[in-house]
């Protein structure tokens, strides 16, 4: 038997070298980046020591002029080119803008593909582009602090985000050159930040049920989770991805408009000013019982009680969603052990009081509600990237909205129900309804309503080439697969002929892969060498990861799972990869060899996975036997 040389002395990538992993909370109002340092999560502040980055981007004619606090300063002086709260537009279609647009004082254009864009002096920009600027800024902050390229990031999304909104978030990260380890639901991230440190989980049988109430600037989530030692199981989630503190501001701004007799239509400057006054009034009323205002030569007084009348309906909507989630979780409200408050809007005493009343519990907010999501995301990023192999953590999350297909008469047939644990794969059979029908169009929708028109349309595609048959005799299997990010893949197959059509669900108003590649290239076009260098560096990181990974795998399982020739074949391709890694500066060549190694190791990977299933259960029976 050939003796295997696992690695040349001194040249193996150091397995214990820490990787740069961060958690990013891309918020409606503020965004943050956090990492794990010496075992605990820390927010990475900017050079002035500020944790938050306002989610604001200011454009000038040459492009982005600034992001964050600096950009926010242009809010009233240059409102049309100062973009804030764009998260509300992320993954939205033109129709949504009509309902949301009123509250967002921008000029929209929808010239291509149906994705709304915002007109600025620089040109029309998509919400994905704007979000990517915020992400790029945060990634830059992290790279500077951590001293090197990021190996990966966990980016949080509202649990109630649909497929289009999740995809848009992921596209924004790709556009910013960030490797996304996982999209993580915000309430789940908060639960991680709170839950992992809890001492009471030492006992395997001890379980706790917690509710995470997350009211941010533009989104609301409620998640009910069951926590037991290291396992975070989401039982149900609900919410509203277009309800948040912004809406409180608008309610107060409307009141101001009426009180000030300003008429129905305001220009963008007036709108911005009113919103800013409304926002600061809201914040002041969290501390004081009343606020005196002096605007447009008018003195106004707003009391706390009066504000409550303006916003109570909105809070009530969140409570209804809470009740529904409790029912979906199939538990009773009084079996919830703890309620956690997350998101800046939970700082309002009225919100906390209403939540407390509903659950009959004093809510917990020992971690700053603005920071907790980023901290939980950092914790998961650290585990996912491989820095913390001892963390015995498992997240079982769910999809927030049912996934379905359009059937006859504009009705939705659900294929995957809301609150199903992900990842999940489900298939359903359909048939043709006309003699000789050779094509079938498939309309993928998301939502819980009966009518397709009330659901979110995710994608349309067509299965062609069905052999002509009598109506009803074709068997068309439509398969839905949702991955751990909550992203959907759909494929359709005619079973008797094997004709197949597959689609990665890319919403019609999202970006195509080629568009993303093009935009990425454009962003580097002024520095071609930069781009090449970055691409090379990325492939080198990938090559190192692969070498380290496969060498460890061969050492562990090579002898038992591969025969001599398989082992040798794999070893040869690995050696070639190592050669290229050290000698080439052509990133395409390196990428090609990575592909070769990937292909060669597929069978090995599959066998290892089967082996680990056996091993996991065998370990369990041993535990049982020892009990």
């Amino acid at each position, binding site marked *: 038997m050939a003796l295997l040389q696992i690695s040349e002395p001194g040249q193996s990538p150091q397995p214990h070298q820490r990787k740069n992993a961060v958690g990013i909370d891309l918020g409606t109002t503020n965004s943050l980046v956090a990492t794990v340092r010496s075992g605990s999560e820390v927010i990475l502040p900017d050079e002035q020591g500020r944790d938050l980055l306002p989610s604001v981007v200011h454009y000038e004619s040459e492009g982005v002029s600034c992001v964050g606090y600096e950009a926010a300063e242009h809010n009233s002086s240059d409102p049309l080119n100062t973009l804030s709260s764009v998260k509300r537009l992320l993954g939205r279609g033109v129709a949504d803008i009509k309902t949301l647009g009123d509250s967002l004082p921008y000029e929209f254009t929808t010239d291509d593909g149906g994705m709304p864009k915002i007109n600025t002096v620089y040109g029309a920009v998509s919400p994905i582009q704007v979000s990517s600027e915020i992400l790029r800024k945060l990634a830059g902050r992290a790279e500077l602090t951590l001293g090197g390229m990021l190996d990966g990031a966990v980016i949080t999304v509202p649990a109630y985000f649909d497929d289009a909104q999740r995809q848009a978030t992921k596209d924004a990260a790709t556009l910013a050159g960030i490797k996304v380890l996982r999209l993580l639901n915000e309430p789940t991230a908060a639960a991680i930040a709170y839950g992992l440190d809890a001492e009471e989980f030492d006992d395997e049988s001890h379980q706790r049920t917690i509710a995470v109430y997350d009211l941010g600037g533009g989104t609301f989530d409620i998640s009910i989770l069951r926590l037991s030692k290291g396992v975070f199981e989401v039982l149900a989630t609900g919410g509203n991805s277009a309800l948040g503190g912004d809406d409180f501001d608008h309610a107060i701004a409307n009141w101001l408009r009426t009180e000030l007799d300003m008429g129905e239509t305001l220009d963008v400057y007036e709108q911005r000013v009113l919103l800013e006054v409304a926002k600061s009034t809201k914040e002041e009323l969290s501390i004081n019982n009343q606020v005196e205002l002096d605007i447009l030569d008018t003195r106004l007084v707003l009391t706390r009680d009066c504000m409550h009348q303006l916003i109570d309906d909105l809070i009530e909507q969140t409570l209804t969603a809470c009740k529904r989630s409790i029912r979906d979780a199939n538990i009773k409200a009084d079996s919830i052990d703890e309620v956690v408050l997350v998101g800046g809007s939970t700082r309002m005493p009225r919100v906390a009081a209403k939540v407390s009343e509903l659950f009959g519990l004093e809510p917990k907010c020992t971690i700053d509600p603005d920071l907790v999501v980023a901290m939980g995301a950092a914790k998961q990023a650290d585990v996912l990237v491989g820095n913390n192999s001892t963390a015995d953590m498992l997240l079982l999350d769910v999809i927030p909205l049912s996934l379905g297909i359009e059937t006859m008469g504009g009705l939705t047939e659900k294929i995957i129900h809301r609150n199903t*644990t992900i*990842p999940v794969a489900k298939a359903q059979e359909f048939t043709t309804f006309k003699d000789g029908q050779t094509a079938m169009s498939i309309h993928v929708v998301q939502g819980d309503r009966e009518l397709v028109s009330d659901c979110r349309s995710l994608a349309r595609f067509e299965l062609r080439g069905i052999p002509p048959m009598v109506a009803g005799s074709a068997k068309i299997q439509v398969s839905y697969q949702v991955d751990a990010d909550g992203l959907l893949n759909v494929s359709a197959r005619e079973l008797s002929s094997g004709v197949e059509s597959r689609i990665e669900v890319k919403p019609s108003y999202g970006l195509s892969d080629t568009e993303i590649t093009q935009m990425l290239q454009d962003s580097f076009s002024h520095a071609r060498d930069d781009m090449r260098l970055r691409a090379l560096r990325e492939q080198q990181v990938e090559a190192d990861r692969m070498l380290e990974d496969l060498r460890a795998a061969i050492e562990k399982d090579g002898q038992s799972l591969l025969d001599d020739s398989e082992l040798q074949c794999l070893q040869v391709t690995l050696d070639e990869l190592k050669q290229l890694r050290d000698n080439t500066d052509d990133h395409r060549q390196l990428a090609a060899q990575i592909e070769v190694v990937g292909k060669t190791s597929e069978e090995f990977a599959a066998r290892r*996975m089967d082996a680990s299933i056996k091993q996991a259960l065998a370990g369990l029976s041993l535990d049982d036997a020892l009990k």
Partner: protein
Amino acid sequence: MNNSKNFFEIFSLAVAWEVDFEQLDIKFRTLQKALHPDRYANKNDFEKRLAVQTAATINQAYETIKNPLSRAQYLLELEDLDASQETHITSDGQFLMDQMLLREALAEIRGSENAKEALVSLSIEAQQTAAKIQSEFASQYQQKAYNEAFESLAKMQFAIKFIDDINELEAELEDL
């Protein structure tokens, strides 16, 4: 994952109606801890895909066994009998009559004064009916009386749909 395994084998459980749910939970979590895509986040695309598929199969197996209706269907499918939802109906006239009466009772509750209390007692009755049908299925399945088992499966669908409708009305009343 090895596709020849049935859902029970995935958890090393015997193919049977009776399930030790505590064992199922422990094994489910153990498997997911080892195979969840989070464990493969740092691997190459092929391994990531494999992990998604495997974890999805484990989730589906877990759900199928946990839910009595899908478990009953699956047990019959394992006997090579087509248990997909539309193919069987019950011919038990008395059962159908009872179901009609129950549905009428539910419809009347909607407008009534003490709706919540009435709903609770109807819910208890419905749960008892469902439990009875399930135990009938269990013994028919065990005796390989598959025709009768199909009949029970059809009844189970009625009973569980009815419980769903009760829950829906309960939700409606709560939101008012």
